[in-house]
């Protein structure tokens, strides 16, 4: 390895949209075998940076050099030819082709346009063995879980002899076990000389696998330091531009409160199965439900949202037993408000204005003789927007134009509109920047203090221990562990119980 020339160097990079500077004289370099983190809040310029490097957009100023040679990327394809591979959050693959075919896509073995399934499989097999990956090569790509799809995509990049790998929040939607595997793969690649630029919101991962941390704020690089010389606290401070506030929102011991939600003997045979799940959420209590993907924790949340009709067992809301919970409407009527995990596909109608998004779930109460009472609606929306501390240009703006954090606030606000007896939140801060996450956590805590019982279903262990008054750990469809008053020190305990790393 030639220690002198960096694999990738970026010098004085600038990009402007209209009057807004998205990137301003950003310079950094990446050695071979180095794993560098690119950190920053949403809107700090991380995605723009990644897109410049991936050749999707061209910068206004500055240069990019690969192995010391200045390069210009006319297109994603030319970036690829220069040895840079970009793995976006939403993977791009051909769903119906097999894993082997996807790996070889674009450079199929054979000549004169003829190829054979066997040759393709052999080549894919070789590649997988080179990197010690065990992949079901003959299955179709869309039948794989996300974690394996990512591995295929990484292998595809490596098969093209990429020396520089850009990963955009690869673990955002992974369980902790899958995340660990991906991080492991990242370090393996680095050991073989691949330079990795890792974009992430998760500081714990950064501190586990990265050598260097670059922090962007408002388009400028505000700090670059080896991770061993810095701390998560310091990094957050750089990201926010101010010292972070205390993030532990779990409250003090709470007197036994009236139960608002009681589940007894919930059972489901279909995968993900549930086995005799019983739990109680009290008034003003935040009960955390932590589990890895497929553990059944999500299923409990979705069932409370009215999405699974095949769960049996008893459900009592505020002392009233429910006869059925088979549709979202039934859940609403019972006083359960459900905040789904995926705000884009399940939560919000992107083209609706904020006002209408906030009133959507309570239109009935704002309607007289079928006509929406607009003044009432506007007043209600304004109140909710203030309650969730929404930042928007105007309430008539389409909700899809907002940042992830503000969209999430609208989603939570729309569910609060119904004044629910119990609030069921699934991954309430997924893909949300640090600042908005803090605000959302503060909001949920304030709601609890006002008496709203909450069931917080999350696969983010930091959130689980930081926000819950009581934490239940779900594994293989059962509640296997309970931690009363979890603190940050409870993280290993929760991970252990959920079946995470020892």
């Amino acid at each position, binding site marked *: 390895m030639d220690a002198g020339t960096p694999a990738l160097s970026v010098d004085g990079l600038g990009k402007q949209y209209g009057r807004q500077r998205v990137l301003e004289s950003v310079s950094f370099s990446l050695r071979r075998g180095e794993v560098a983190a690119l950190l920053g809040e949403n809107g700090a310029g991380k995605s723009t940076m990644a897109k410049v490097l991936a050749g999707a957009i061209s910068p206004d100023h500055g240069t990019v050099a690969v192995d010391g040679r200045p390069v210009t990327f006319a297109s994603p394809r030319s970036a690829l030819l220069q040895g840079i591979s970009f793995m976006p959050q939403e993977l791009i693959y051909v769903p119906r082709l097999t894993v082997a075919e996807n790996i070889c896509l674009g450079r199929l073995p054979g000549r004169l346009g003829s190829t054979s399934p066997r040759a393709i499989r052999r080549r894919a097999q070789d590649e997988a063995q080179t990197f010690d990956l065990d992949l079901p090569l003959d299955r179709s790509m869309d039948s794989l879980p996300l974690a394996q799809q990512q591995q295929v995509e990484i292998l595809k990049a490596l098969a093209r002899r990429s020396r520089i790998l850009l990963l955009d929040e690869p673990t955002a939607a992974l369980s902790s076990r899958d995340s660990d595997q991906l991080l492991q793969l990242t370090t393996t690649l680095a050991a073989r000389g691949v330079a990795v630029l890792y974009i992430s919101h998760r500081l714990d991962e950064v501190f586990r696998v990265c050598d260097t941390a670059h922090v962007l704020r408002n388009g400028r690089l505000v700090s670059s330091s080896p991770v061993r010389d810095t701390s998560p606290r310091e990094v957050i401070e750089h990201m926010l531009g101010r010292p972070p506030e205390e993030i532990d929102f779990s409250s003090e011991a709470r007197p036994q409160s009236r139960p608002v939600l009681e589940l007894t003997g919930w059972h489901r045979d279909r995968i993900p199965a549930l086995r005799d799940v019983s739990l109680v959420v009290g008034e003003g209590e935040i009960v955390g439900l932590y589990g890895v993907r497929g553990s059944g924790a999500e299923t409990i949340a979705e069932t409370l949202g009215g999405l699974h009709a095949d769960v049996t067992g008893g459900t009592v809301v505020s002392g009233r037993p429910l006869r059925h919970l088979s549709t979202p409407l039934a859940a609403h009527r019972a006083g359960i408000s459900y905040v789904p995990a995926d705000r884009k596909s399940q939560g919000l109608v992107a083209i609706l204005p904020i006002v209408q998004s906030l009133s959507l779930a309570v239109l009935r109460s704002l309607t007289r003789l079928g006509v929406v009472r607009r003044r009432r609606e506007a007043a209600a929306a304004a109140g909710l927007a203030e309650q969730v501390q929404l*930042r928007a240009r105007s309430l008539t703006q389409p909700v899809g134009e907002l940042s992830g954090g503000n969209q999430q606030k609208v989603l939570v606000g729309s569910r609060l509109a119904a004044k629910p007896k119990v609030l069921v939140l699934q991954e309430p801060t997924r893909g949300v920047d640090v600042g908005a996450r803090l605000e959302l956590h503060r909001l949920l805590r304030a709601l609890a203090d006002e008496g709203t019982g909450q069931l917080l279903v999350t696969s983010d262990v930091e959130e689980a221990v930081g926000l819950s008054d009581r934490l239940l750990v779900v594994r293989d469809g059962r509640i296997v562990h309970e931690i009363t008053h979890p603190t940050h020190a409870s993280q290993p305990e929760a991970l252990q119980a959920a079946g995470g790393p020892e």
Partner: protein
Amino acid sequence: MKTTTGAPVGDPAVGAPGAGPSPRRRLGLSEGALQTLLLFGFLVLVAAYFTSRDPDFLTSRNAVNILVNASVIGIVSLGQLFALVSGGFDLSVGGIVPLGGVGFALLVNADYGVLPAVVLVLAAGGVWGVVNGLLIAKARINPLIATLGTLSVTGGLALTLADGVQVPFVDVADGVLTRRQLFDVNNHVWIFLGLAVVVFLVLRYTSYGRQLYAVGGNKQAARLAGIRVDGVTVIVYVVSGALAALAGAVLASQLLTGSGTAGTNSGLQSITAVILGGAALSGGVGGVPGTVIGVLILGALANGMAILSVPSFYQTMATGAVLLVAVGISQFRSSRRAAS
């Protein structure tokens, strides 16, 4: 290459509204209003062109002519608007219009009286709408295929009822919808404009309208917000079917006969008008003002070409071309929406 985010929108948390203010924002117009205005400009251009070729185009008599001829497709388009906003299609109008026309003529000839005949025709259209709605919402058949099926069934039914021939009104002087006029303008035009106002109010001010846009914009999110998506969808096709049947009755009154072959292309025309009016194929977008102007543009094109003695098959070709251009513009707009 598809990436997760388009141009960075900036962080609204810092108060940056993205790139500089667009012209429409400076004018204080909503995007929809601007589009409607542009579309109206296009209508004026079309009118100006035909007037320059033949001054007879721009007379009040001809304007009424255009309106009368456009009112049939106009009524169908108002129903089609529901379907497109919901994210679907209603091709079956091409069968329900002739069915409504034949049915209306048969009922009037059987001395049911005009008003009861209209009510029965509306109900029949609504029933076919229920069929469409259930096929789409409950049986989960793609709207295109479901209504293609019912298009064929209703179209065949119209021909069967007419026994393969025309059903002329027995007593033309009596009862047909044309008899009375208001302000010298044919009642058909008033029916169309009146319905346009009603649909405008329903879409904009009722909770049903709100739910419809939400369902069209994101079905899953609407369902999770407690909206009865299936119910909303069934109503869409009931409205579309009933309006198409009414349009058939209006058409029969204009032709003075119920014909199993009149109005068979109203599916194509109404979809063209609604998309021209700004609706998106993906659903959740569209409105009455745009639709009405879209209908008038198609009407002006047909009328202008007739005045210039362009053969009618060229007009069919023109409608197809307009549809393709309108869809192209609509797709371009939604890709821009997705990028911002």
